[in-house]
């Protein structure tokens, strides 16, 4: 029934349009590894953001660490500016349980105390397990629990959404 998901680039453009009026010059865009960083890179370019792009790997903050262990490919988080008092736009590809976003917020607070954090996701697929909702979503759909929405990047940098 979701045989053809919308084009990811169209969704990113839609997200950028929604975010643009709310963006202040000091806003820091932070993407969550890996898919969130791809989306954040596009938004950062489209919105001509004045601040450098931040990236977050939440592996050290996951709540399922003691069950599944450390992800073998942890990437360093990179927050290039001071977070104290800053407006942050947190970006992820797919919002599902909300646990990744919780972990990301915990990590952000270990760098400083931001003035605000807003959440932008490419797809809000439902199935939330925490009181976390996006401020901006490119697409809102309901996907059964046993299915996953996956964002992938081709060699030429093209982003595509798939359902499996």
């Amino acid at each position, binding site marked *: 029934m979701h045989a053809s998901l919308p084009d990811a680039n169209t969704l990113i453009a839609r997200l950028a349009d929604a975010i643009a009026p709310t963006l202040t010059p000091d806003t820091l865009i932070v993407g969550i590894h890996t898919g969130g960083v791809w989306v954040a890179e596009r938004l950062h370019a489209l919105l001509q953001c004045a601040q450098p792009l931040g990236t977050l*790997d939440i*592996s*050290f*903050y996951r709540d399922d*660490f*003691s*069950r*599944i*262990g*450390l992800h*073998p*490919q*942890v*990437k*360093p*988080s*990179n927050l290039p500016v001071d977070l104290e008092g800053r407006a942050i736009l947190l970006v992820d590809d797919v919002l599902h349980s909300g646990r990744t976003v919780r972990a990301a917020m*915990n*990590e952000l*607070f*270990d*760098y*400083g105390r931001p003035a605000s954090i807003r959440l932008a996701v490419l797809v809000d697929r439902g199935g939330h397990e925490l009181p976390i909702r996006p401020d901006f979503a490119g697409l809102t759909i309901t996907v059964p629990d046993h299915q996953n929405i996956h964002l992938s990047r081709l060699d030429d940098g093209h982003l595509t959404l798939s359902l499996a």
Partner: protein
Amino acid sequence: MNRQLTQDGRLRHLLTLDGLPRAIITQILDTAESFMDVGEREVKKVPLLRGKSIFNLFFEPSTRTRTTFEIAAKRLSADVVNLNIATSSQTKGEAILDTVDNLAAMHADMFIVRHSQSGAAHFIAQHVAPHISVVNAGDGRHAHPTQGLLDMFTIRRFKGEFHNLTVAIVGDVLHSRVARSQIHALTTLGVPEVRVIGPKTLLPTGVEQMGVKVFHDMEAGLRGCDVVIMLRLQNERMKGARLPSAQEYFKFFGLTPEKLALAKPDAIVMHPGPMNRGVEIASEVADGPQSVILPQVTYGIAVRMAVMAMLAGTGNA
């Protein structure tokens, strides 16, 4: 045979670098890389090991190693208990496994073990319940795997790659667990030329079988090296018949600026500490521009965080 790994090939204990697969060593180094920035943040902690209890079991005194393990565990949010057992229950004659059982009954999740007997950490690892991990923090002359790993991390940070390096290990290889761990790691990571340099009395017989080239002449051994690793000369070794005097040793095997000049101009100098200045290394070199001895200490924290995080996340903790 490989007690260090789980059935599915993940790290279960860290006891030795001998036989540890290259993929695991690389994973530890990569994970350590991502822990590097935690030490520079506002809050120098991540919550990975929250609620875990780590016991530093030091049957042999050590300040630096114990401290870096303690800091590493605390940066992972674990609770750390330090036991200097040389000065507590061992003197009352308590057997090592009784000590371990008692601490396990206090719900320990991990033991960091330093002992003067080779094999002590293996012995404890064989004995503990499945959910407890053991890290060897130095056993006799056998192994000091986290030191070996932090040395590899240091080399990778300064040199980038391993496949094009010539590395010299200089000094008392015979009594050095650090040297053994370094040699295993360097060969596993594909360093094409590992040299050991020292007097005959301080090199183990048959060391060539570990895949190293042996030099008794330091000048010849240093020529063209990318990395020079100095080993600590244990003072007690000089009391025996192995060496005439500290001055004599320094003359032949002490690293001076003149001798270092024989290595490549961009060669780095490493030392596991604590240094004997004027015995195995001159102060001009130890404090000189090619020395990476203090970065080694800093990197040791990130590397130990990586090891502890990987162990605690094996799924059995």
